[in-house]
């Protein structure tokens, strides 16, 4: 029975080579020692590293044969010098952002639409990421070419998706299976809303006061009520209706209806009513 042994040809037990750390200079090129991500090699890392909670009455474990140092990811390949070298190689592929558009307002003026999309990199039992499908579009209404009727109609059509304070229309779509489909749908929706806003129906002009979004003073019931009350009162006194108090009252009523009820606004309304009807 032949026993095959590969190796040094019978010269005796091999001597252990001295670790590389002993041959390293102080000013050596570190990225050549760790050019890529590699497990921690105690013979190739010259610094003393202690890791691990020591046993009772013991000292912390040295780096040789230390399992904890192998478990944790090390960043020895990403020293500042290494990153600078990578940057030198990558610089040619990175075009600069044109400096004229550094602030957000200029960006909005030239590029009004914003599109949000998500990607991810992770390891786990599943490769699926449900957030990758979602696409969100944000547009400012003021940047679209619409007249006043169109704007109001657009706001009504959009419904919940429009936020009045920021004047931003947000459309989110995730029902299609692929990101590209969602993106196309979002652009399609924007086009449809825009074109529908330009259309006027025959019954659109027969709107009553309740349909209006903003309170308009002319031809409103509030105006008629005020003038009637004043006429009745003045008929008893037979003097001219003062116009300044009516104007104040008009402003307060419009504010209450448009901006909602606030302490400040309600006190102003109270003052204007008192002055109008000459109450104390």
């Amino acid at each position: 029975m032949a026993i095959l042994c590969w190796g040094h040809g019978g010269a005796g037990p091999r001597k252990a080579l001295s670790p590389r750390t002993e041959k390293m200079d102080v000013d050596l090129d570190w990225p050549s020692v760790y050019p890529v991500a590699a497990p921690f090699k105690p013979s190739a890392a010259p610094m003393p590293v202690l890791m691990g909670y020591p046993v009772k009455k013991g000292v912390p474990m040295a780096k040789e044969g230390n399992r904890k140092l192998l478990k944790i990811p090390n960043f020895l390949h990403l020293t500042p010098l290494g990153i600078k070298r990578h940057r030198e190689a990558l610089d040619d592929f990175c075009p600069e952002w044109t400096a004229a558009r550094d602030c957000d307002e200029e960006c909005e003026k030239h590029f009004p639409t914003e599109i949000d999309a998500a990607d991810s990199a992770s390891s786990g039992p599943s490769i699926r990421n449900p957030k990758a499908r979602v696409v969100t579009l944000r547009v400012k209404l003021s940047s679209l070419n619409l007249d006043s009727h169109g704007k109001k109609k657009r706001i009504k059509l959009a419904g919940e998706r429009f936020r009045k304070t920021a004047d931003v229309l947000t459309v989110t779509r995730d029902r299609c299976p692929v990101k590209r489909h969602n993106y196309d749908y979002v652009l399609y929706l924007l086009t449809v809303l825009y074109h529908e806003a330009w259309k006027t129906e025959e019954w659109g002009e027969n709107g009553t006061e309740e349909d209006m979004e903003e309170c308009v003073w002319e031809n409103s019931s509030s105006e008629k009520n005020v003038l009637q009350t004043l006429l009745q009162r003045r008929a008893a006194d037979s003097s001219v209706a003062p116009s300044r108090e009516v104007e104040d009252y008009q402003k307060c009523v419009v504010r209450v209806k448009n901006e909602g009820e606030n302490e400040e606004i309600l006190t102003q309304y109270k003052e204007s009513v008192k002055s109008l009807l000459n109450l104390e």
Partner: protein
Amino acid sequence: MAARAACAAVCRRLGQELGSLSVNGSKSSTAQAGGLLLSSVKRAPSSSLHIDVPKDLIKPTITTSDEPDTLYKRLSILVKAHDKAVLDSYEYFAVLAAKELGISIDVHEPPRKMERLTLLKSVHIFKKHRVQYEMRTLYRRFELKHLTGCTANVYLEYIQRNLPEGVAMEVTKTQIQQLPEHIKEPMWEALTKEEDSKS
């Protein structure tokens, strides 16, 4: 007996040739030495030997196209891990890389989330004795502003290739675009003009 001696002789010859190979350090000697046995034996990498990267490495060619590049107003990168030290090191790396490439970067640390489980300690009965586990997820968010599409792709690829083990990343890109061509003017006018011209 004779077979054993022959094997020993083969071993010695192999050893000598292997030794000569390690001294030369070039692959051409493998072909010269020849022999079926040598080609099947793999040379173990020795730590004392360092093979240099060839100096005449051809750089990948840069191609430019006429299409306008996509523009990103904001790139939001959320990094999740179980270990704070790893996240700190990764943050240092990402920030340095961004500064080297000339990208403005902002870092903050969202609060960690802990998922706790309380399970029975024993396989059967002993309801009063339980054991509790927790899973800590620590976060770091990098916000980059004003990037071109090429720069974003390069930076993200660099960051993701050097993502350490046990760390996950989610990227949210905000792209800015001009209004599509067909929204600048409503098409009803064009349609009515066509109808008029037809009739």
